[in-house]
């Protein structure tokens, strides 16, 4: 029996000679290079986003997926990497992306009309090669539609980016790539943060609108607390340490004219949960010099 197996093995190795080196040899794929997602909490949680692998981020609407996408785009374009975004429902907002720090000149935006086009476009981009970051945004596609994508499509993507320096990010409402993804993060929105009402204290939630008196001009949307939970990982970062497996809290969004509260305002840092504040995207748009605006 053993000799028969050895014969079969040598036969397979001979037939694959020149095409595949050591087909039965163990290849350690766990140690991968990772890049920053632009959000320190996620980097600490997952060790960054892996290159040459598929990363899946899923969650319901308004759960913070786009926040992660924009942060990663901003981080990658700041490193002069060429990025591509396959937008399945044409929902990308360049204005907020630029405000988030994305260098739009470095971004190839593919506006698709549906799932089929998106998958084909992503395939073309991956096959084209050379992109540092490719995002496939299926966030607005109904989960029951994405569920029909055969698993071999994700497997094909995973194999296509393997041995490349591309970070492939998949945004969905539900996890579909299963084991094809090297890293799976689930996003959840915890709470929206509103600025103070004229009579309220700073960072206090505004009064219900039915309550009177209420001045909606004075109540600004500061942002939202977002929680990222690592569902699955099969990688070990070689350049970024991972803090833990528990969920982390992220606060992203708007801070009004009042100074951002900081971590102490809405959460406590721990080994498994960290939080931070983000500045309003409008506040630094307004701070932009007039010359820059004109240009």
């Amino acid at each position: 029996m053993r000799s028969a197996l050895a014969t079969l093995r040598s036969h397979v190795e001979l037939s694959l000679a020149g095409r595949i080196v050591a087909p039965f040899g163990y290849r350690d794929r766990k140690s991968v290079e990772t890049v920053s997602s632009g959000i320190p909490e996620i980097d600490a949680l997952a060790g960054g986003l892996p290159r040459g692998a598929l990363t899946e981020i899923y969650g319901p609407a308004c759960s913070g997926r786009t926040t992660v996408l924009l942060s990663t785009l901003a981080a990658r374009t700041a490193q002069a990497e060429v990025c591509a975004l396959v937008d399945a429902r044409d929902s990308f907002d360049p204005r907020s992306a630029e405000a988030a720090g994305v260098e739009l000149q470095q971004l190839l935006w593919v506006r698709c009309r549906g799932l089929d086009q998106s998958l084909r476009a992503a395939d073309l981009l991956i096959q084209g090669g050379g992109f540092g970051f490719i995002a496939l945004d299926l966030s607005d596609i109904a989960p029951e539609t994405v569920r029909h994508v055969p698993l071999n499509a994700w497997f094909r993507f995973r194999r296509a980016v393997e041995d490349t320096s591309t970070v492939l990010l998949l945004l969905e409402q539900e996890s579909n790539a299963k084991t094809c993804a090297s890293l799976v993060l689930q996003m959840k929105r915890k709470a929206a943060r509103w600025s103070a009402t004229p009579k309220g204290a700073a960072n206090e939630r505004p009064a219900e609108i039915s309550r009177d008196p209420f001045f909606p001009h004075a109540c600004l949307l500061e942002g939202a607390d977002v929680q990222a939970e690592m569902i699955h990982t099969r990688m070990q970062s070689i350049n970024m340490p991972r803090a833990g497996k528990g969920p982390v809290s992220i606060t992203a969004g708007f801070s009004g004219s009042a100074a951002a509260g900081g971590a102490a305002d809405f959460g406590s840092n721990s080994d498994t949960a960290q939080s931070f504040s983000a500045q309003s995207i409008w506040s630094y748009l307004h701070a932009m010099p007039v010359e820059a605006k004109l240009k």
Partner: protein
Amino acid sequence: MFFAAIHIPDFIVQAVVRGEFSLHGRAVAIVEGTPPLWSVVAANPHALRIGIELGMAKSQAAQFTAVEIRHRSLAQEKAAHEALLDLGWSVSPRVEDTAADTIVVDLVGLGALFGPEEKIAQELAKRSASLGLSARIAAAQSIEVAILAARGLAGVTLIAPGEEAQRLSALPVHTLLPSPEILETLARWGVETCGALAALPVIQLSERLGQEGVRLHTLARGEFTRSLVLARPSVYFQEEMELDDAVEELESLSFLLGRLLDQLCERLAARSLSARAIRMEFELERSFEKELQSCAHPGQQKLIPRKFEKVLVLPVPMRDSKLLLKLVRLRLQSDPPPAAIIKMILSAEPDRPRTTQRGLFLPAAPEPEKLELTMARLANLVGDANVGSPQLMDTHRPDAIRMERFRLAQEIAGGRGKKSSTPTNRNRSELRVAKPANGFRLFRPGLPARVELRNGLPARVFFQGQRGEVVAASGPWRTSGDWWQEPWDQAEWDVEVQFSSVAQKTKLLAEPARVRGLYLIYYDARQLGWFLRGAYD
């Protein structure tokens, strides 16, 4: 001082065969004339051996089943002549345009580049083969000797100084291109070779044939000297092909396009140039049926144009014919010609080849050629307007963006691998914060919604079959503009919506009941209705 003459035997035939690769090695006869009086004007040795004769009627030539009959193409001859000149300029800037089928190249100073004259001649033969031309090449110290040897001797010939008369002596006298009367006289005298002509006494020859006789005598002895008349290098790269039958399918057309692109790229390579743009011009067949069909529809009474033009602008100079063919095919797939094609002209806008020294520590970027192909494929998939780099417009109008052609930073910075450091970029990078900004997803177009107000504030929102209670709101933020053209006037609200338990899953907002969402809604004062602009995600 050495000169190399390059001569293309059966030039008219070779010009046609060059455009139709399948004719290589076959008997070909070229006919010309006004229909139906077509007669054979040129034939290759294969055809002559079979029995084709010059001046034979086309109907007679058609009796020879092994002979391929083609019509003479002046355009292809012109292109072949240009290719011949490119061959000369590929090795030396000093080229003489002697005739349609002959050029002379000055070989002075080329030794350091190519080696001795023999090697140069062999290199020329190799390059001419790559251009689709089978050439005879002769190198000699005298221009005329080189020309005569190229016309008369097959392959590559090198004539050493002092051997001119001896090497030319075996050539037939018609290689000197005498007038028909003189040729007839020489034939009557029994003078058939240059050697026989050179042996005649020059004074007696002068008495009988005049100055022309003396000139022919000097040529036959290999003693005629003159200066090189330099041709001006042209930047004209055009190849064209007329089709016997109209071609409608892109698959069939791409084969012919590939052939033309191969020729163009070979010519560009010969001149160490690349193409910055490819201009395609197609002559369309005038089809009575199609015109009748188009006139039958009242709303589409538009005549099919006779010509169809397309320009393929390349981000970086290229001369890879296979890549160019893919790009051309994708362009034609996305915008196909309206009728069958009977003639096509491809011209290249020449430019210096791309030379880029990438830095070791720069991040990887797609190869510009590959990127162009990928973008062309994407444009073919999702439409040209849906691929590119978004650019914000200088207006407060919501979602005012334009799509620009995506270009690599290296291209923008002039191929030096430097990031552009415009003041705008500097300011933006200075203003960028390390904290994440809340992501925003747009609904294009805005989703119609119904909003119930309470004390002037949004209290309940209905959209996409969902109902939600507004638990917090901020606004209204008034925005308007462009009153002189396409004005907008809107009042925006940021709202936090608590969806009710009866909420149904929808296409855009598939989420379980009892959840909250952050949305941007607006009241459009011009459309008098509420809409959802997007969601904070």
